[in-house]
């Protein structure tokens, strides 16, 4: 066969296979979103989604020099991506996003172990073995596609390498191809963006955008309006009075199931949170995540920075890295507190070890620091074990202490897991209308949050009996992933899971009763105020925003814009300079953090 004809056939084969892979990936994309399988086929988004698939295939072809092998490996990787998207939508109600890349960069054994809980490994292992066998046979038996020293091979390899490098660096030319207008991007509605641009198309778009993730504009007028609001009077501590110990418990997946349509009363299940809400400051809290993503709520509580100010930031501990991240921990440290974080999992999970240093914790106790006989309940260290650690640290403290404890016992999934007391789990009353998987899911979940509530009661009793002032904050980080329960029951207010709230409460020495709805970024100013720690100008502004946000929607929007702008200045360490320019140097800005 003449060389030119041979080259033409090879080029045709490559193009043909690229189109087949593009179509298959588009069908998988649609399937993972549970929509009709060729919706928006051949659209601009279709081709935008096809480019990364084709580039990967051609790069693998240039590397392996085996046509079918390169096609199969591409297909396996694409399938894995869309399967992950399907699972993420099912359990977390959000699609795979560019932020997940940061999770992959920081993949540790603890993360893998937790994620594999969501897979049915019984099917996974034979499928993986089959795929590996096919890849092995193809690598061994398939004939080379290009001749030795092929110019076509070198050219294609170089071209795709250029594409991959552009992808890695977020090159400008990619921004012109993956432009929001052409892709029909719907800001803040990732599912609709994927509908038009495909998952891969929207990932490349986000990649290009990521360089601007923290480069959000500051509306100085909105920030100045917020600053001009009369600040609340600063809490005053009487001379010589003891500073209260501060304990903050972030309870994994804790919400009050009474908001489910099938359940009216949870006072028997969660007596302590109900008692605390009746006595202390608290109510409902709007977390920035649903079904998972604990670190999002955690970041907002610790820093007071709303993640809505940074729409491109999904995993703040992974995407925000600077020498110091301003936080209530630094405020407490300056007020003379010893600051300790406690979490019964690996410190590498969510990159907490590094992030907590930047946030300013003096000490971070992780799973390895728990005692050898610390009890598990279900898969993880129990809330009892976490409370033991809190009590142990407070009992040996020589200075006022702030403890931030992150529980893990109630982490999902909530099926097929053994627990320490299966009889107690089986005896949990069945809510009306829940059956089969939903009932199993509910009972497992309720078992763990009941434990969380009991430990809240135990900790509260311990603190109250110490004859030392204290402030205890308790809140849920987000609603859990309970797809069967939500499907069978729904919620009292008729809204979906991501639009529900979690409970939060503060009890302690001199803490009166008040009911208020908050966002998680307001929690820092609440705890500082309850503990009588003088807030910085940033937290004073957040506190003054709180009553304003209870007003009409238009007013809320203006206040939120002010908060977001102020948060952007705060994170970049420019708030002090801004306040001085607005109010004059009298109001000392101790918020500079860089």
């Amino acid at each position, binding site marked *: 066969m003449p060389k030119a004809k041979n080259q033409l056939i090879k080029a045709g084969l490559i193009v043909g296979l690229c189109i087949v892979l593009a179509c298959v990936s588009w069908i998988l994309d649609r399937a993972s979103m549970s929509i009709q*399988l060729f919706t928006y086929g051949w659209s601009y988004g279709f081709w935008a989604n096809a480019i990364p698939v084709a580039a990967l295939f051609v790069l693998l072809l240039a590397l392996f020099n085996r046509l079918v092998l390169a096609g199969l490996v591409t297909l396996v990787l694409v399938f894995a991506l869309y*399967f992950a998207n399907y699972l993420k939508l099912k359990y977390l109600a959000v699609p795979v996003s560019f932020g997940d890349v940061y999770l992959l960069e920081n993949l540790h054994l603890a993360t893998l172990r937790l994620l594999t809980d969501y897979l049915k490994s019984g099917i996974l292992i034979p499928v993986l073995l089959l795929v590996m066998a096919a890849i092995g046979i193809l690598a061994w038996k398939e004939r080379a596609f290009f001749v030795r020293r092929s110019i076509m091979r070198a050219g294609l390899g170089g071209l795709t390498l250029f594409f991959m490098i552009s992808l890695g660096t977020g090159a400008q030319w990619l921004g012109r191809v993956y432009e929001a*207008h052409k892709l029909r991007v719907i*800001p803040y509605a990732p*599912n609709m963006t994927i509908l038009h641009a495909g998952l891969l198309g929207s990932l490349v778009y986000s990649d290009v955008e990521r360089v601007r993730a923290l480069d959000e504009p500051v509306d100085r007028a909105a920030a100045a309006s917020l600053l001009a609001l009369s600040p609340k009077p600063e809490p005053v501590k009487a001379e010589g009075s003891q500073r209260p110990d501060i304990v903050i418990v972030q309870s994994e997946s804790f919400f009050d199931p009474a908001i489910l349509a099938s359940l009216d009363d949870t006072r028997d299940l969660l007596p302590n949170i109900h008692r605390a809400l009746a006595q202390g400051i608290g109510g409902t809290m709007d977390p920035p995540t649903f079904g998972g993503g604990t670190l999002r709520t955690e970041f907002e509580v610790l820093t007071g920075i709303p993640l809505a100010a940074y729409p491109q930031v999904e995993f703040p501990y992974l995407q925000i890295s600077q020498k110091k991240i301003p936080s209530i921990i630094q405020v407490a440290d300056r007020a003379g507190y010893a600051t300790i974080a406690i979490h019964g999992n690996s410190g590498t999970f969510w990159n907490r070890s590094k992030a907590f240093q930047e946030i300013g914790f003096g000490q971070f106790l992780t799973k390895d620091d728990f005692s050898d006989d610390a009890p598990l309940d279900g898969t993880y260290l129990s809330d009892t074990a976490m409370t033991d650690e809190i009590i142990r640290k407070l009992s040996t403290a020589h200075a006022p202490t702030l403890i931030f404890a992150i529980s893990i016992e109630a982490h999902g999934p909530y099926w097929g897991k053994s627990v320490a007391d299966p009889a107690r789990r089986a005896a949990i009353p069945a809510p009306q209308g829940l059956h089969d998987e939903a009932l199993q899911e509910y009972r497992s979940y309720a078992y763990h949050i009941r434990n969380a509530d009991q430990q809240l009661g135990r900790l509260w009793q311990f603190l109250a009996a110490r004859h030392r002032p204290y402030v205890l904050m308790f809140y849920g980080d987000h609603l859990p992933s309970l797809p069967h329960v939500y499907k069978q029951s729904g919620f009292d207010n008729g809204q979906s899971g991501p639009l529900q709230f979690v409970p939060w409460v503060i009890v302690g020495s001199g803490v009166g009763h008040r009911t208020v709805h908050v966002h998680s970024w307001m929690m820092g100013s609440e705890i500082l105020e309850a503990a009588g720690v003088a807030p910085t100008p940033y937290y004073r502004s957040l506190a003054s925003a709180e009553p304003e946000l209870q007003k009409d929607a238009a007013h809320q929007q203006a206040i939120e814009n002010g908060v977001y702008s102020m948060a952007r200045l705060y994170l970049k360490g420019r708030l002090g300079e801004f306040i001085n320019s607005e109010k004059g140097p009298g109001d000392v800005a101790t918020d500079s953090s860089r």
Partner: protein
Amino acid sequence: MMLMLAGCSAFGSSELEFNPAQLPACKGPLIVVHLRWNFEAETGKPVRIYISSPGEAPKLWSFTGPKGEANTGRWMHDGSTITVRDSKGRLLGIRTLETTFCKRSARKLLNQR
């Protein structure tokens, strides 16, 4: 689930039709769609019709005969999906509403950033 979806009704079912077939440019965002279905060849029993948005869990809209037609409410939007299943949960048909591109609304949305 994903494989089942991929295996069935890959390119839309002729027995499940929307009128209008597409959301016209710059109309909406919500419209009423006239729905027509016929799955008598697949089942003689009643079928379940579900509605959903992209990536979201479907909600039961109607439990009805295998052949029929009806108007939706004014809640169909870009990406709204109608799924029809038989009594055993087997997928009979799936259709998603597409829109033609509207420059005016795209510009408005992007300016909200």
